């Protein structure tokens, strides 16, 4: 008991150095060193001890949990079998659960050597969050609100080192389930490094973990990998980005209909847009649910 009381007293001491120091009023505090956000150093999470821990977590915890909670149907793996080097996976983004679903759907040799581009302002704003996401998903910080050379340099250097990258071209989760315009990040990195872009369509994850939800729900999910595409000569990043968005839209169409219908619509230029109809919010919602065939219900 004495030892316990001593331990308790130790943790109850809240003065310096147990607690953080206060700053003399005559001193203007130095700006905090950039150790969070885009400046957070994630290199530790790509060393073998962290990779081993992450592999164990993904294979022995996340994958079985996903199978129970959100059994996924994975299609198109044959399209990425021929990949011999790193690739940029560019999925649509509707839920935080997307990353878990996608990581557990990737082939083993790719999964354990893939990093995830994550918003520096959201996932790396606190130290514990930065540590957590770096360890569990190999997340790297990406500046979403402005162009940041450090973010791009880090992603490019990792691709050059043989790491694949998951980057959500929309830059954030969809607010209503329809896709947002694809930004140029994935296209830029592909042009810069020569790594092909694998379009990926994710479905059902919004039912598992909608935006702003507090808990997980059971729902079936689908992961569809498309044929890797590369930048063609003379194509700028904006055009390439549009092509990536089109490829994901074709995968969505393929999921809603079948491959043959989707191919014919693609050839005819009539693939339904990922962004949904230009209509009022309730109609967009109505259209979304009728399209992907999920039961209509209220989000809390």
């Amino acid at each position, binding site marked *: 008991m004495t030892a316990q009381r001593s331990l308790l007293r130790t943790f109850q001491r809240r003065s*310096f*150095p*147990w607690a953080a*120091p206060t*700053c003399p009023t*005559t001193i203007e505090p130095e700006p905090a060193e950039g150790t969070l956000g885009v400046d957070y150093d994630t290199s530790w999470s790509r060393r073998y001890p962290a990779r081993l821990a992450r592999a164990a977590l993904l294979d022995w915890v996340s994958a079985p949990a996903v199978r129970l909670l959100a059994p996924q149907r994975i299609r198109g793996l044959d399209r990425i079998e021929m990949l011999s080097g790193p690739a940029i996976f560019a999925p649509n983004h509707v839920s935080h659960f997307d990353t878990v679903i996608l990581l557990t759907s990737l082939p083993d040799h790719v999964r354990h050597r893939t990093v995830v581009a994550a918003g520096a302002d959201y996932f790396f704003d606190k130290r514990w969050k930065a540590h957590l996401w770096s360890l569990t998903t190999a997340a790297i910080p990406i500046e979403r609100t402005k162009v940041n050379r450090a973010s791009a340099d880090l992603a490019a250097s990792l691709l050059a080192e043989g790491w694949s990258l998951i980057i959500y071209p929309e830059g954030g989760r969809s607010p209503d389930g329809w896709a947002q315009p694809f930004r140029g990040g994935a296209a830029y990195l592909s042009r810069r490094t020569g790594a092909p872009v694998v379009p990926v369509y994710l479905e059902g994850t919004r039912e598992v973990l909608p935006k702003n939800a507090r808990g997980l729900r059971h729902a079936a999910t689908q992961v569809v990998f498309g044929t890797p595409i590369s930048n063609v000569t003379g194509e700028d990043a904006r055009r390439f980005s549009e092509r990536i968005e089109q490829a994901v839209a074709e995968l969505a169409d393929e999921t809603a209909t079948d491959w043959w219908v989707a191919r014919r619509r693609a050839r005819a230029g009539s693939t339904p847009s990922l962004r949904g109809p230009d209509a009022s919010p309730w109609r967009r919602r109505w259209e979304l649910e009728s399209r992907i065939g999920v039961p209509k219900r209220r989000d809390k």
Partner: protein
Amino acid sequence: MPRPGFVLEVDRSTPPTLFWYGERFRLERLPTGSRVIYAPEPHAPLADPDAAIASALDNPLGDSPPLSGLLRPGMRLTIAFDDVSLPLPPMKSPDVRGQVIEAVLDRAAAAGVDDVVLIAALALHRRMTDAELRHALGPRVYDAFAPHGFLTQHDAEDPDGIVHIGETDQGEDVELNRRAAESDLIVYVNINLVAMDGGHKSVATGLASYNSLRHHHNPATMVHSRSFMDQHRSELHSSNWRMGRLIAASGIKIFQIETTLNTNTFPEQFGFLQKREWEWTMKDRAGFLAASKALQHTPPKVARSIFHSIRAPHAMTSVQAGEVEAVHAVTTENVYAQQMVAVSGQTDILTMGLPYISPYNVNSIMNPILVACLGLGYFFNLYRGKPLVRQGGVVILSHPTPWAFHPVHHPSYIDFFEQVLSQTTDPVAMSTTFEESYARDPWYIHLYRTSNAYHGVHPFYMWYWCAHALDHLGQVIVVGGEPRAVRRLGFKPASTLADALEMASDTVGRDPSITHLHAPPLLLADVT
């Protein structure tokens, strides 16, 4: 861009201040209105030290030709270098001495010089161990010279190894190491950790005999050195300069090489020791708590060995070579640039936390005499202009001051503490009554020459280093010191800083100004 040093005025928001306490630390809350002097942050190291050394050797300062122009086949070349007392703590490999000496030897080899001897310029310090020599010089130099007897250590008591050069116009005997004096060229390799180091003091002190050293290592000289860090107001330096000029006039050629280090003093795990307390990160606080809690329960011997295994990440910031005085002028400016902190006005009470190491207890015990020397001889003298503490003020030291001595390194210190300090703490009285007998004692001389002992007279010199402070101060208090040992030194023991401040009020009144010297890392207060 490293931040300059500065003076903090303590207010209610100021966190407790770190005080060194030997092999431990104390966090003390200084009264509101006290000042704390923080050292400048470490300057950037030289990007390419080898290129800088080569450039210095090939483009010397003053009227010296490039080193290669001074080397020729058949000549006698002596390379002298600073001993284990520099730098503090010992720097991590490679030591700059080894780097510089390799560059010198490269040129000597290219010039076909065969007769090369390396001499550790010990003066009256203890001989270095083989491991210390190997660390200072690097394995390539050590293995090339030591097995063949060409790596030697200066012996100030070798009757055949000392030569009398002459007398200065002040009647000071100049005696030097014979090998060095009879060489065609002496290359002296310095580490200028503080402004006091280097210049003519390198050869005139490092390679001298007792008969020569006694002319400037005495109470009168020390009292009139204000301070040792200001060459132009230091009688110690004036004497050495007279000797150096006599040496030059006698035809002895010296090619001086001086290096400066930054104040990156402690490795990363002890990073909190050189940071400002309010900037301690969680890692720093955890490091401090872990270290201080562990050290509270660590036997002193183990704690000592842990601390003495620290290798400082010092890095070279400049290297100069050529004629002694021209080189030293540039070096001193570089040291000042790294260490100088402007301080306005003196203080009634100066507090200092004394660390585990001084120049004379590397890999050894910090005995009470060295505690006094570090506090009153070195830290007190870290000023230019005026002393930090006013005439008649109080110095409060923080150190455990154990009654403990290293029997091999400091044999004469033991007797000095028992026999001399028990009778007098007056530097002048002890110099006239006791110094000669300790300096000429055959047993101490034997231990100095054959063992790893400091010379018999060395504890006197340590006490003389305190002479200026003892002459200047009204009282000296040691916080946390062993009372018997502290009283033997003539100081007053106090259990806590609050007690010490209360005791000091007898001398400086109830509302004194207080200044804390936040060192190490080393700084130099420019007091106006």
